[in-house]
C-alpha cells in the first residue's frame, strides 16, 4: 500500500461534498460518526432523490473512514459492502433531498472491521441501511492524517465544470454495445488517496450496468423507470489501469424485482476481476 494523498483532495469527495463529524471525544474504541450530504441538482434525479450509485459512494466513504478510525494506527480497505433501500423511499417524496448518514462500528477484530451505516432524510425517515466489512492493513507510510475527534471541514472544489455534471459524466461512463455493459475510463479524480479506483466508482459503474440490463437498452445514464434496491458488492482486487468494464447478466426475477449478477473487470490489467456483485433492480410503475 503506497502513501496516502490529501483527504481534502479526493475527487469523488469533492464531487459529493459530504461533511463528516465524529460523535464524542474521539477516544471510543468503536467510533461513531455522522455525515451530512446536502446534495446538488446534478447529483439528484428529477425528483430530488439520490440514486443507489451515489448513495453507495457516500456510504462507502463514511463507512470506510469510520472503519479506518477504529483501526488506527493501521488503516483499512473495503472488502464488501451491502446496501438496502427502504421500500417506501423509492418513489414519491420520501427519501428525497439532503441525507444524514449515522455510522457505527459494530466490531473491530484483529484483522477486520464491520460497520453499520443508516441513512435518513431530513424528516428522519430511513432511506437505506448498509453494512460493510473492511480488512485491516498496515500502510507503508502510515494512516491518513486525522485529528480526533474528526470535525467537518470545507473541501476546495476544483474550478472544473466536470464537478457540476451528472454522475455518468463525472465518472466517465460509456454505454457498451448491448444492454448490461458499461465502461469507466479511470481518471485521476476517480482515484482514492492510495491511487487506486475509488470503491464508490466501482459501485457507480456496476449499478449502471445492472440498470441498463433490466431496462433493456445500452445506457450509462439515469434510468427513471428502474432503481437498484439492494446491492451486495465484494471487492476482489483494486482497479489500477482501466478501462473498467461492468458486465451484467440476469439471474431471474420476482415480479418487478430483477436479480442481476455483475462482474467488474480492469481491462488494462489483464482483465482482472475487481468486483463481483449481486443487485436487485426494481422496475418502477
Amino acid at each position, binding site marked *: 500500500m503506497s502513501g496516502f494523498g490529501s483527504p481534502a483532495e479526493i475527487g469523488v469527495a469533492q464531487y459529493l461534498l459530504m461533511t463528516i463529524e465524529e460523535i464524542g471525544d474521539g477516544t471510543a474504541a468503536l467510533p461513531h460518526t455522522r455525515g451530512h450530504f446536502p446534495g446538488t441538482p446534478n447529483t439528484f434525479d428529477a425528483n430530488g432523490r439520490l440514486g443507489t450509485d451515489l448513495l453507495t459512494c457516500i456510504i462507502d466513504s463514511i463507512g470506510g473512514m469510520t472503519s479506518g478510525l477504529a483501526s488506527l494506527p493501521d488503516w483499512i480497505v473495503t*472488502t464488501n459492502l451491502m446496501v*438496502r433501500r427502504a421500500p417506501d423511499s423509492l418513489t414519491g417524496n420520501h427519501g428525497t433531498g439532503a441525507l444524514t448518514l449515522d455510522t457505527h462500528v459494530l466490531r473491530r477484530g484483529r484483522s477486520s472491521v464491520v460497520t453499520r451505516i443508516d441513512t435518513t432524510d431530513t424528516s428522519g425517515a430511513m432511506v437505506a441501511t448498509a453494512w460493510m466489512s473492511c480488512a485491516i492493513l498496515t500502510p507503508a507510510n502510515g494512516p491518513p492524517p486525522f485529528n480526533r475527534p474528526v470535525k467537518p471541514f470545507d473541501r476546495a472544489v476544483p474550478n472544473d465544470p466536470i464537478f457540476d455534471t451528472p454522475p455518468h459524466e463525472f465518472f466517465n461512463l460509456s454505454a457498451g454495445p448491448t444492454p448490461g455493459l458499461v465502461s469507466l475510463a479511470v481518471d485521476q479524480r476517480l482515484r482514492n488517496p492510495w491511487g487506486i479506483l475509488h470503491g464508490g466508482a466501482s459501485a457507480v459503474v456496476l449499478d449502471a450496468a445492472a440498470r441498463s440490463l433490466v431496462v433493456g437498452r445500452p445506457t450509462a445514464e439515469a434510468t427513471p423507470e428502474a432503481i437498484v434496491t439492494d446491492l451486495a458488492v465484494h471487492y476482489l*482486487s483494486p482497479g489500477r489501469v482501466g478501462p473498467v468494464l461492468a458486465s451484467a447478466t440476469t439471474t431471474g426475477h420476482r415480479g418487478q424485482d430483477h436479480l442481476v449478477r455483475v462482474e467488474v473487470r480492469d481491462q488494462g490489467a489483464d482483465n482482472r476481476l475487481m468486483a463481483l456483485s449481486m443487485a436487485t433492480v426494481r422496475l418502477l410503475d
Partner: protein
Amino acid sequence: MTTEKTTARSPLDSLLVPSDDVPADSRPAYPPPRHAMSLLALESEQDLSGDVRGWMPVTRYTATADGMPRLATVAMLVDALGGLRSITASDPEWAFTADMSIHLLPAGPIEVLQADLHVRRRGRRTLVIEAELLADGERPAGSALLTFAVVPRPEHLVNITIDMTPGRRMMNRNSEQEHLTGDYLDELQLLVTQPGNATIELHPAVCNTVGALHGAVHASLVDEASASLARSLLGRDVVTTDMHLAYLELGRVGPLSATATSVGGPSSDHVSAVVEIRDGNEMLVSYATTEVCGL
C-alpha cells in the same frame, strides 16, 4: 486425497476421516442426534479441482408457501458446502465464514435444490465463494456469496484426512436414519415471541463443533424474525427472499435472540429489515439485513 491424520470431529464428519492410530476423541460425538444440519439430508460431491456441488431435498417441512425452500434451510446448504469448499481452497490454512449473502428466486414448487460452488478469490486473508442455486437441476433459483476469513489452521485440525473420492454422498451419516417429521424451525425449537422477535436456546442440535450457535442457525433466526415482522406489517403470508448476514462473535451463551426492525415503511408487498442477534449476555453476535415479500 490427503493422507494426514486427525482427531477432528466436524460438521463435515463424513469427509474428515479419523485415522486408526490416534487417541480417541473424548469430546461428545458431533453432530449429536437430530442436529440442524443432519435433518436436512444434504448431499455433496467434490470434483478433482475442489469445486463442490450439493443437493437438498425440499419437503413440506422445509418449504414456504411458494414451494421454495425457506431461506433458513438454503443457508444451511450453502454454509455446509462452502465450508467443504473452503478446506481445499484455504489449505494449508483454515477458513471461517465471515459473512453470507443469499438471494432466492420464485422457482417453486421444487423437489431438490442444487448448489454449485466456485471460488472467486483466494487472498492472503480472505476467501470468496459464489454459489449458483438451481431448482431441480435446471431452473435458476437464486445465488449466494460467502466470505471466509483465512486463519492459521487450529491445532485440533492440523492433521486431517479429507475423503475426496469421487461420488455423491450424504454430508452427514445421521441423515440416513434421521428425518424431519415436522416444521424445520419447530424442530430446532426456534420460537417467535412477538412479531420481529425470535429466540432459541443453545441446545446441542443447533450448535457447531465448538459449542456455539451454528452459523446457519443464525440465518434461521434472521429468517424467522424478519418473516414474523413482515407478516405482521403486511397482514399475509410472506417469504424472506434475501439476506446479507455478518458474523461478529461466537454465540456461546444462550438463549440467543433476534430482533428485526423495519427499514423505513413497507411498500404494498415488500418489507426491508435490519436484524440483530444477541446472546444471553446481550452481546451482539451477528447482524443482517433482509428483504421479505408478501405472497
